[in-house]
């Protein structure tokens, strides 16, 4: 494997890590309620 391939692989894994990060953050127990709050609020009479 040449250097470029290693670099591309690194970028791929980096991006994947960001995705995992976003998923973990969004779905953390701490954020369960705040994360889902807007969907109820928007049903309030406007």
């Amino acid at each position, binding site marked *: 494997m040449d250097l470029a391939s290693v670099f591309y692989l690194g970028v791929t894994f980096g991006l994947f890590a960001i*995705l995992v990060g976003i998923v973990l953050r969004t779905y953390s127990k701490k954020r369960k309620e705040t*994360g889902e709050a807007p969907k109820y609020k928007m049903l309030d009479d406007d």
Partner: protein
Amino acid sequence: MEKPSYNTDIVRGFVNWSIIWGLVAVLVGVIVSLQMVNPDLNFPPYLTFGRLRPIHTNAGIYGWGVGFIFATFFYMAQRLCKTPIWSPKLAKFQLWFFNATIIASAVTLLMGFTTSKEYHEMEWPIDLMIIVLWVMFAINIIMTIIKRREEQMYISLWYMMAAIIGIAVLFVVNSAAVPAALFKSYSAYAGTNDANVHWWFGHNAVAMALTAPPLAMFYYFLPKSTGVPIYSHRLSIISFWSLIFMYLWTGAHHLLWTPVPDWVQTLAMAFSVMLIAPSWGSVINGYLSMNGQWHQMRDNYLVKFLILGLTFYGLQTLQGPMQSIRTFSAFIHYTDWVPGHIHMGTMGWVSMIGFACIYYLVPRIYGNEIFSIPLANLHFWLILIGQLIWSISMWVAGVLQAGMWNAMNPDGSLTYTFMETMVEMYPYWWARAIGGLIYLIGVLIFIYNLYMTVQKGKKSSSTLTEAEGRA
């Protein structure tokens, strides 16, 4: 909290005008479909297929599509932010400027002033008008969001903001050109570069104008119509980030097998296939929101439009990735299959969502109950059948044509001349024209129903009368 007084005048204005431009788009569409089957219907120099087809596409995208984006964004932003529009005056000016831009586009395109770049044919002075228009709109929406009285933002606002930024970036980059006359310019990019920039624009216009905004609408109007929240706000967030990340890599799937660098094509192909995930994230989210509410598909015509629209989005985002695969693209690209695909997205997904939004909005901005639900149902079935005839006839035609183009004899020679393949298309082009005509009748019934709602509709009960609160 005291109820803010929302501006509904501006929503009315954009609803009305977007419907007019939508009618123009469908009408011109039917005309060009007839020109395809009978060249005697071309009346040079102005009314030829080559000049009318861009009017059809641009009236559809910029007049109808962007028109109801303006209408719904102004409606949603005020309510999701619990604050009136930041500048009603700017919005009012925007409405006039919008119509001036669309009219200027139509007139210049008829005169043959075109850049030839698909879905971006308008020449540089119109490009400048569109940029001004978009900046006005962006400022008004963003300022409304900044001034909001609801701290956490609902997913629709996310999609709205992404669309506002995305369209701005795409449009400005792809407009770059050197003027040679008042209505003639030469692209700032040449040949292969121009192709790659253009389809980066072209495909992401689909993302930022015809995907993100309808998703914003879907996430807002589905729960409003059903009375139950969406299945998962957090899933919508994951879909959001992955969708806006992946889309931008896929433009070159329009350029498979062309001289664009191979690795750009391969990336486009790979990302197109991966795009199934975020697209279906929204589709599944929508379907799961209907849990326990499926009976509303029968009783609630708004839900019918929204869920069928979402279903076409789901089909579109499976068919699209399939077409992005090199081997499949080699077969069907350049045939009538492709318009069949596009029209499932525009006539099915985008317009169905648009119709649903307008059916929801009109009683609320005019204070009248909808004139006739049976007519709304008839409208639904006509556009559904019209669109299915349209798309299915083109898919069959495309496969037939591709098969004939590629057919070879045992000695390695081609079986058919080009004309032998073209004449086989006529029956399918007729079917397509009939599908378009049925769709047009559906749209006319829609307009009649709305007209009667405004003129003769019963005053609606207090829950709907936001119109009273309009500024």
